């Protein structure tokens, strides 16, 4: 069971010049050490990254880190580990011209209608294309 992620933005006092992820030594309170099983989509995200980086050479793990680090602070803090990954994978597939944003949106709409037709819950949340946008 995946625990509900925390959706808060953390204050970065005295963070002048740091990228959003580069917070070593800053006080963010206690670390949540609760373990949880990975959801199926998280396992698939992991598999996709390995496939795209190591087998297909579509982009490097360094490019993936760069895209995640370029998130705005709010998007960075309010997304979970694999949410950061899947968003970066999507944006890099577009950056490398494997798929277009329109193709992604079209497919997402198709899948949403299939799930709704089968009585499954579909989240209204979307992942913003803009790099600084909130997720």
């Amino acid at each position, binding site marked *: 069971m995946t625990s509900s992620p925390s959706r808060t933005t953390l204050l970065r006092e005295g963070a002048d*010049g*740091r*990228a959003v992820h*580069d917070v*070593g*030594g800053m006080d963010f309170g206690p670390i949540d050490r609760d373990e949880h099983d990975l959801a199926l989509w998280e396992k698939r995200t992991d598999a996709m990254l390995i496939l795209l980086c190591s087998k297909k050479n579509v*982009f*490097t793990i*360094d*490019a993936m*880190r*760069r895209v995640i*680090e370029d998130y705005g602070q709010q998007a960075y803090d309010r997304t979970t580990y694999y949410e950061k990954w899947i968003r970066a994978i999507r944006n890099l597939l577009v950056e*490398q011209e494997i798929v277009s944003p329109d193709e992604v949106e079209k497919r997402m709409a198709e899948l949403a209608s299939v799930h709704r037709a089968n009585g499954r819950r579909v989240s209204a949340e979307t992942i913003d294309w803009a790099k600084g946008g909130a997720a």
Partner: protein
Amino acid sequence: MSVEAVTAQRFRPGQTVHVIERPALGHCRTPWYLRGKTGVVASVQGAYRDPERLAYHKPGLPSQVLYKVRFLQTELWPDYPGPASDHLEADIYEGWLESAS
């Protein structure tokens, strides 16, 4: 088998080095809290394609020498409460280091 270009190794184990204090332009593996700090080269980790270039779909050549650098915790954190001999080791690429002597 091709031999890739590698930058010359400028530092050796035991040498005191200084992490350059400069802002990162884009992807960077040198954490902010180590910039401007002084440490000692613990070992040479090898040479790797430059992640700062790989991150932008460039080949990342010539490869950069990567060092394991040892810092005293008291050098990094002004209020460090532990023993004075406690240290931290971090992998730092050569382009971020300069000789401290």
